[in-house]
């Protein structure tokens, strides 16, 4: 068998010329004869068997045959026109035997099938030798058709005088294995030849007579290439041809098979499916907000509220590495462009022991495993920013990608805001981010990658008259800047299918400054390092053990002069500048060590059981925690799976809450118990229904207190204690239509109740983002001619609101201080909004241009995002969210 395969490999595809058989043509009238003849197409080719003795002696040869083909495409007869040399090896018989088994699409003339006789050359060539012995050696490796002299003999000297390449329009990918036909009419005879493109899309023709030739290629799924070219005597015609795919549907991408699901709740979004969702500007993290279990937050709010947990309770990783900021300016745009990403995994709860330090959910943004086939990239231009992404292979084993993006909102705002405005933007919101990714695969067992990325945001304001804003504002300027960078090195070791180890290390710096002159500021400079290692051992096909270590180190310099800021459950509004306090620290070291071990076993081929345990140590609160977790899935039937999970989760209080001045250094960990149960139903390959009920019991939540403590004889505020409780329960439904039938989308619905009880409270109150009903309908439909229509419609119960019951005028502060009612006892009106996005792609030879119009809030729903009060809180008006907003952008890909 192996030898047979070898022989197939070394026998070159036969190439042929054809003539309309005279006896048949004679029967046609003259008019019909003048019509061009479409040559027969070889649809079932049987390779000639390489004669064993010739193979042994390493002898090459070729045989010219004449093949008669009838109207049905069957071979009627085969004659040897030019026998093989040297004789005696059996080349002739091998060629004739093979040709007798050929099947063709019949030749046609005027749409009618006709019998033809073709001249066919069978070449017997060995792989390590030039495929065609040719005096013109430069193109020896190009498979080429040749016109035999008079259709019956090989010329003494063959000249390659037509040389072309066939590529996909727009992407420049070479098209291999495509049959290219060149033909023309010569008197009553139509002459044509075929060649098949090689891996580089190259093809060639020999000894074409001078004159005009028609070229035809009809690759499957592409519009045909129909063109004509001139062959000039004693010149070689060189040409590149681009054929256009019938549809550059973004959903034509090859999507990796669904990874084995272990968790009770996990949604994986491929980057291709999120790019064209309206209202998200292709921002992958923003798309998370459309998944079940995630509450709606403001239009540009970057906080992700998962199953009634505060935004800070949800961890966001980039390939498993913690990042300080995921959005520019808290929600404007995520800091890593789409080009760098592969997919996003979202775990709203009951995540396995691999993830820790979070009591809410986990968002894990996965980087692309770089495997570019050519130098390419894109340039993305929209109203807010522009970005460029480039990637290229570096030999067979390496690749590198780089990206950069910068905003120009500053330029737009400065152009619009008059100089006489009460606030001058010295630096209007300006952001940029940059990424460099490289991979190296020395062999199948090792994969090394390095990723360097960072981001920088800045905003500076100048107040023309500070008193206009607040009488207690004594600063004439305000600014905020946030920057970070990280270097991540990763080594993936896969010596066998039974073992895999992933080692990562990252280091970098976070720098945050926000302030109002010298009056208020927060100046943080943190150096961080992380070491992560995860191993997976497959003991059998059904039993796997995974474990690892995750160590975080940071050292921070901080200068903070700040008033009291509102926490969850507390009304926001104007901060009381009389509560300003100051703290300063240098080289404040913090360590977090996490280890985990979990067993993944499949019992009876249908029951997956994943017990795991995680141990964490947090140096800032000098506390350790042990968190057992258990997930299970049971395949009831081919399309039905039931699932459930229970687990313990811990996290540290925030840095300000454990600060000696602003917080309480004696705080402990916050804790949550997650319970989930549900089922999945997949009626069709591309359709899944996931229904999950959940309950989350949170305890030891950090809660503000007026309690005092005696420190060295001095009475001080305790500020915070671990006295809060939380309770969240609900149901999540996700009906997802994966890439199929030109459509991709989902319906997600969440029914939930999220409650909190602060220290000292006797009654439960609503959580800040307690939204009873959250419904999202979302989809993108790929239309003909490279148009895509996307839509999103959301209906969400209004968020809780704390009413004002009056106000007291503080003459010293110069403003009315609101008197609030019970926290979150009121609700904003129901939110509903539809967004529509239209994409159109134009395909040029070497690149593609996509333009989009994204109309947010297309029916201008006057959604209430909060209330605005007059100076003494006796009148209020609804503060409305985003009005109808058309946004345009373009993206050029090459």
């Amino acid at each position, binding site marked *: 068998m192996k030898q047979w395969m070898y022989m197939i490999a070394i026998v070159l595809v036969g190439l042929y010329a054809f003539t309309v058989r005279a006896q048949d043509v004679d029967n046609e009238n003259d008019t019909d004869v003048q019509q*061009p003849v479409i040559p027969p197409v070889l649809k079932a080719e049987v390779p000639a068997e390489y004669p064993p003795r010739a193979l042994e002696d390493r002898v090459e040869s070729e045989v010219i045959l004449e093949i008669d083909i009838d109207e049905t495409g069957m071979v009627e007869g085969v004659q040897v026109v030019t026998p093989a040399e040297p004789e005696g090896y059996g080349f002739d018989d091998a060629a004739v035997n093979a040709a007798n088994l050929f099947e063709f699409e019949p030749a046609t003339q005027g749409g009618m099938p006709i019998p033809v006789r073709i001249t066919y050359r069978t070449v017997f060539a060995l792989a390590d030798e030039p495929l065609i012995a040719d005096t013109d050696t430069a193109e020896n490796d190009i498979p080429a058709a040749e016109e035999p002299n008079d259709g019956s003999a090989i010329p003494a000297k063959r000249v390659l005088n037509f040389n072309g390449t066939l590529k996909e329009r727009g992407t420049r990918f070479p098209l291999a294995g495509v049959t290219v036909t060149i033909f023309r009419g010569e008197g009553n005879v139509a002459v044509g030849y075929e060649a098949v493109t090689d891996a580089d899309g190259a093809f060639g023709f020999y000894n074409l007579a001078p004159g005009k030739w028609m070229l035809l290629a009809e690759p499957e*799924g592409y519009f045909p290439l129909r063109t004509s070219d001139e062959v000039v005597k004693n010149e070689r015609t060189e040409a590149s041809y681009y054929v256009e795919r019938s549809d550059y549907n973004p959903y034509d991408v090859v999507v990796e098979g669904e990874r084995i699901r272990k968790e009770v709740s996990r949604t994986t979004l491929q980057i291709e499916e999120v790019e064209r969702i309206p209202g998200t500007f292709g921002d992958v993290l923003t798309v998370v907000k459309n998944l079940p279990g995630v509450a709606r937050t403001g239009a540009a709010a970057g906080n992700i509220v998962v199953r009634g947990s505060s935004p800070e309770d949800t961890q966001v990783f980039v390939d498993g590495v913690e990042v300080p900021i995921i959005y520019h300016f808290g929600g404007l745009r995520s800091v890593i462009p789409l080009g760098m990403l592969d997919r996003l995994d979202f775990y709203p709860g009951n995540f396995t022991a691999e993830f820790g330090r979070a009591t809410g959910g986990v968002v894990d943004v996965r980087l692309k495993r770089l495997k570019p086939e050519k130098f390419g990239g894109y340039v993305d231009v929209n109203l807010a920013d522009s970005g460029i992404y480039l990637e290229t292979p570096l030999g067979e084993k390496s690749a590198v990608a780089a990206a950069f993006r910068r905003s120009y909102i500053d330029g737009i705002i400065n152009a619009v805001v008059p100089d006489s405005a009460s606030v001058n933007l010295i630096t209007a919101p300006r952001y940029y981010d940059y990424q460099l990714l490289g991979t190296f695969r020395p062999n199948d067992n090792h994969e090394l990658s390095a990723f360097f990325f960072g981001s920088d945001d800045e905003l500076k304001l100048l107040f023309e008259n500070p008193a206009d804003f607040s009488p207690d504002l004594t600063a004439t300027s305000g600014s905020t800047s946030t920057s970070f960078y990280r270097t991540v090195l990763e080594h993936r070791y896969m010596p066998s299918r039974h073992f895999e180890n992933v080692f990562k290390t990252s280091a970098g710096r976070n720098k945050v400054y926000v302030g109002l002159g010298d009056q208020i500021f927060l100046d943080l400079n943190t150096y961080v390092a992380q070491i992560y290692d995860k191993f997976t051992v497959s003991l059998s096909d059904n039993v796997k053990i995974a474990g690892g270590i995750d160590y975080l180190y940071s050292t921070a310099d901080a200068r903070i002069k700040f008033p009291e800021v509102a926490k969850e459950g507390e009304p926001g509004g104007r901060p009381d500048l009389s509560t300003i306090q100051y703290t300063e620290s240098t080289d404040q070291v913090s360590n977090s060590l996490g280890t985990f071990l979990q067993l993944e076993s499949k019992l009876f081929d249908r029951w997956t059981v994943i017990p795991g345990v995680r141990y964490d140590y947090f140096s800032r609160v000098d506390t350790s925690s042990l968190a057992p977790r258990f997930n299970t899935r049971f395949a009831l039937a081919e399309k039905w799976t039931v699932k459930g999970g229970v687990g313990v989760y811990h996290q540290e209080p925030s840095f300000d809450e454990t600060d000696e001045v602003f917080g309480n250094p004696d705080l402990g960990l916050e804790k949550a118990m997650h319970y989930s149960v549900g089922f999945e139903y997949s009626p069709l390959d591309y359709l899944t229904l996931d229904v999950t009920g959940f309950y989350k019991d949170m305890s030891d939540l950090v809660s503000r207190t007026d309690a005092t403590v005696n420190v060295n004889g001095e009475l001080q505020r305790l500020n915070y204690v671990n006295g809060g409780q939380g309770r969240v329960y609900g149901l999540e439904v996700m009906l997802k239509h994966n890439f199929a039938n030109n*459509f991709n989308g989902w319906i997600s619905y969440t029914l939930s109740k999220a409650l909190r009880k602060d220290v000292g409270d006797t009654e439960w109150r609503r959580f800040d983002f307690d939204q009873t009903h959250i419904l999202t309908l979302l989809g993108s439909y790929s239309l003909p*001619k490279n*148009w895509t229509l996307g839509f999103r419609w959301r209906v969400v119960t209004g968020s809780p609101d704390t009413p004002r019951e009056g106000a007291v005028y503080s003459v010293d502060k110069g403003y009315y201080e609101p008197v609030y009612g019970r926290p979150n006892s009121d609700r904003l009106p129901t939110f509903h909004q539809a967004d529509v996005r239209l994409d159109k792609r134009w395909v040029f030879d070497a690149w593609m241009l996509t333009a989009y119009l994204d109309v947010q809030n*297309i029916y201008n729903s006057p959604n209430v995002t909060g209330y605005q009060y007059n100076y003494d809180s006796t009148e209020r008006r609804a503060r409305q969210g985003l009005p109808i907003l*058309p946004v345009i952008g373009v993206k050029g890909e090459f």
Partner: protein
Amino acid sequence: MSVLKHAFTLLMIPVAVTFIGVFSSTARGAELQKPALKQGYYFSLIPVGEAVLVDSSENFGPWPSVGGQFRMGEELNRWFDLGLSGGATVAYSDNYRLIHGHFGLDGTFKPTAVLSIGLQAGLGFGDFTRRKPGITEVIGRFGATYGITVSYDLFAGSRHRSPHQSGGFAMSPYIGAHIGPSDVTSIYAFFVGIAFTRWTGLPKNRLDLPLDEAF
């Protein structure tokens, strides 16, 4: 404002998608199209005359106004075109001035070869100034606008055209209405005009042509 008030938009999206989905199957893939006049990209310039009503704290109008619209897009298949549209009209007298316009998505259904029904949704804006002795009242509006248009396409030289011609130039009587609903200020406009439309046609390699014309 209730969800139902905008049922038009909400319905239009799934209806359009379904419509396109059902009828587009034949135009997908690399199948070649029969040559037709309404093929390729189109661009329309439409001078219009309009009657505009403003419904604010009191009703104003209707006023005659003049202006222009444009529509641009691409033929998706035999039944449907997709693109953008926009336009503005001005009404002016000694007592008032009204500028009213729109910009947004535009989908055209083609029940017959010469009849086009366009549906539009997008952003609308209006600026209405009314002058009374001593007082100048200004009402502005910014919000969603929906529209419907009907046109009958008369192609130039269609009698003499080749059956293999793709694209062409059409002059079309054109009528329609734009509605900008709002709780505060709504605008209603009814217009007539003539659309001058140029269809680029399809390149030869996308057309089902006899061989002698295909190359």
